[in-house]
């Protein structure tokens, strides 16, 4: 990029600029922008081809119209990827004429003269709108949206709804007992999660991990681990722990525990990132150690919101623990699943009402407690 003439800058700034803009770093940033553009353009091209195939009336080997899945199978991925790469390259080379590309804008910021334009006057604005529109139409076809069935075929579900409306008292007793188990299950999972999430969340907060190479590495590792953990559904964790410790509520506790740690670390660390830095600076200035700075500058500020998040998490865990039983993780779900499979809708109705009342009450209680704390 040609240097834009600017006010004379001082020697220090000149030296900083040279340190920051090594050719290597510049190159990496260029490649990042190019890559983002290539991916975005590829998405547009793929969806265009998808829509073209869907509306061309082309038939498959069976003589029927192609299903969305068959179309996805037939898209010309390699060629479109090549084309996307080429187009991205063109856009990045001639961005002055075309307007800043989305990738370049993301990685290095838009050109000065584009900064304050409304989206209708930038090419990347139009590109974004095209991308969103295409995604919506393609999504409509891929998920096989059927407006007519939704509006006219309610009668087929009537049996189930009628059953739910007429709960049977047969499972009430057993349901209540398992409900108690469900609430304790959620509580234990939350209790086990608190100390670990508390300790780890400091390593997952950006503002506390800028100091040196090791803390930045710890941040990256913790974040990645937690994101992966959260990406795996509690149901899957339940299956893992059922084979580990056997069917029963403890497997459910472990499944919700793992998921809660990851979720709480995210909530806690975001809270840590938004604290007032003043007390941290004041304590640092006394010559306190890093742990003392955390204890005096950070912890007092985050305790009330942490409590609030934790209660909220218990609330979520109660909701989740009703499902955990579906696969054998204990709780009320354990007797719900077979009745769903058998179509015993009256009994299902009873259990659903029990769950709904519990969730509703947890919701009110946790909201009240959180109101008091914050």
């Amino acid at each position, binding site marked *: 990029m040609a240097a*834009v003439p*600017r*006010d*004379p*800058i*001082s*020697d*220090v*700034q000149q*030296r*900083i*600029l040279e340190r920051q803009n090594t050719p290597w770093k510049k190159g990496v940033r260029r490649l990042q922008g190019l890559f983002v553009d290539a991916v975005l353009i590829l998405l547009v091209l793929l969806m265009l081809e998808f829509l073209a195939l869907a509306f061309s009336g082309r038939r498959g080997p069976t003589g029927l119209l192609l299903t969305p899945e068959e179309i996805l199978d037939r898209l010309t991925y390699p060629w479109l990827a090549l084309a996307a790469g080429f187009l991205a390259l063109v856009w990045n080379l001639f961005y002055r004429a075309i307007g800043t590309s989305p990738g370049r804008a993301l990685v290095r910021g838009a050109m000065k003269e584009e900064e304050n334009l409304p989206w209708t006057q930038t090419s990347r604005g139009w590109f974004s709108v095209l991308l969103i529109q295409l995604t919506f139409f393609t999504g409509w076809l891929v998920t096989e949206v059927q407006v007519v069935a939704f509006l006219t075929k309610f009668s087929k579900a009537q049996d189930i709804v009628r059953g739910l409306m007429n709960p049977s008292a047969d499972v009430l007793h057993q349901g209540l007992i398992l409900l108690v188990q469900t609430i304790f299950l959620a509580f234990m999972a939350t209790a086990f999660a608190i100390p670990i999430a508390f300790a780890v969340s400091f390593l997952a907060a950006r503002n506390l991990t800028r100091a040196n190479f090791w803390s930045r590495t710890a941040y990256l590792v913790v974040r990645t681990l937690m994101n992966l953990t959260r990406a795996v559904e509690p149901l899957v964790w339940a299956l893992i722990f059922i084979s580990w410790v056997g069917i029963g509520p403890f497997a459910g506790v472990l499944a919700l525990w793992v998921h809660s740690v990851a979720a709480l670390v995210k909530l806690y660390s975001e809270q840590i990132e938004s604290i007032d830095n*003043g*007390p941290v*600076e*004041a*304590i*640092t*200035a*006394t*010559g*306190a*150690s890093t*742990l*003392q700075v955390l*204890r*005096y*500058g950070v912890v*007092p*500020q985050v*305790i009330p919101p942490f409590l609030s998040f934790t209660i909220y998490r218990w609330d979520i865990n109660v909701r989740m623990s009703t499902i955990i039983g579906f696969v054998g993780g204990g709780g009320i779900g354990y007797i719900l699943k077979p009745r769903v499979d058998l179509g015993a809708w009256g009994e299902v109705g009873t259990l659903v009402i029990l769950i709904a009342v519990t969730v509703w009450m947890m919701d009110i209680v946790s909201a009240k407690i959180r109101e008091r704390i914050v």
Partner: protein
Amino acid sequence: MSGPSEMQRREAVRIEGLSKVYDDGTLALDGVDLTVYEGEFLVVLGLSGSGKSTLLRCVNRLIEPTEGRILIHGEDMTAATGRTLRRMRSDVAMIFQQFNLVRRHTVLTNVLSGSLGRSGRLGSYFLRFSEIERKKALEFLERVGLEGRDQSRADALSGGQQQRVAIARALMQEAKLVLADEPVASLDPALRHSVMRHIEGLNRDEGMTVMCTLHDIDLVRRYATRLVALRAGRKVWEGTADEFDDETFLEIYGQEAEPAAEVA
């Protein structure tokens, strides 16, 4: 300790070629050289954005200087790391415009936190301090006129009271140097002298060297023994309180300030 020539002047802080460029490219300090002598009450002047806060924060490394060197009592602060850095910091107390107390802790705990630099003990994690330290803290609270308030929560106090707690914290730190960044700017004008007099007390009675930024020219004239003026990150004037006349004032504040140049 007013007349600089009366005694042999020992250096408390020596700043050499100090520059700071923030991550966004703002040049906040540009090659500042400055020596502060023991026992001085040095006031740093300058328009908003001239780099006063940045200068003070570089001295105890709350901000990492980009270039340059800072010696505190002859020891290199800029090269210090780990334990050495913490020990050197514990000799430098700081007083902030926004007080920066731990709001949910008691006044007493806030004062006691000034001693954290020398108490690495386990007890400090449970807000426990030795009886000697507690006695000292109560004494300092009395000195700043807050006896009986030691068990109040810090945020239950008024601004002026909070700043006096911060001064007690600085006393507790038993520092040799005090950095005060606009210590009275968020206080009622009527309260300013009461807080400033306590800072003067740190200087006169405790023999602490003070580096202070102030906006109010009356306060500057009343408390400073020496002055330094910054503009756009450069030192543009330096002199004693007597030399700071109206002409100098116009020189520092009068002309239209140029905003500091920025790098893309």
